[in-house]
């Protein structure tokens, strides 16, 4: 596709359920980032993938959060046993190496 694609665009779930958020980066972009943006806040770094290197998971807030990137392309962010404080917009971005990031439209997660 022409841009970064994220799905679903909105997700409502009940506290305690697991959710999976998907990111399809721009073709050929080797770097992929996940961010979380809570209401009125800036972008909080979660995780970074670069090619076949081990991901930088330093931003993941707890062990309930995990992410995979299959075949160097599509990435899935999984949140287990969701809590209300996980409610936020989850943004994915891709870039060529560590150059300019191009963002997807995000997934708005609401945990009831």
């Amino acid at each position: 596709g022409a841009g970064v694609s994220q799905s679903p665009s909105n997700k409502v779930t009940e506290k305690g359920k697991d959710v999976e958020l998907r990111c399809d980066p721009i073709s050929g972009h080797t770097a992929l980032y996940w961010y979380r943006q809570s209401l009125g806040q800036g972008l909080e770094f979660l995780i970074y993938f670069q090619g076949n290197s081990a991901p930088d998971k330093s931003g993941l807030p707890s062990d309930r959060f995990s992410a995979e990137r299959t075949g160097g392309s599509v990435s899935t962010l999984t949140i287990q046993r969701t809590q209300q404080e996980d409610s936020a917009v989850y943004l994915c971005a891709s870039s060529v190496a560590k150059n300019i990031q191009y963002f997807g439209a995000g997934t708005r997660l609401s945990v009831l």
Partner: protein
Amino acid sequence: EDKVVQSPLSLVVHEGDTVTLNCSYEVTNFRSLLWYKQEKKAPTFLFMLTSSGIEKKSGRLSSILDKKELFSILNITATQTGDSAIYLCAETATGNQFYFGTGTSLTVIP
């Protein structure tokens, strides 16, 4: 830890006004500073600055970096309602992360 601070947090102006948005940063091993515009969800890229004193310009928007005083400004002249958005500043260092500020929310009133 690297830190990016933006000011003001929010701004309301009338169409035609000129605005200046500020971004200061604390960083080790600075590599670049970026500005993004976020209207609904996806931030869109505006500028990337790596050198001090060189103005980057795109239409009514311009930006400049001061690596000695560790700040950047984003100027918007002759503002229009379509400029209403959150403007995000981000700094990159030699590691993997992009450090984002909390943004400046700009509202342009007709």
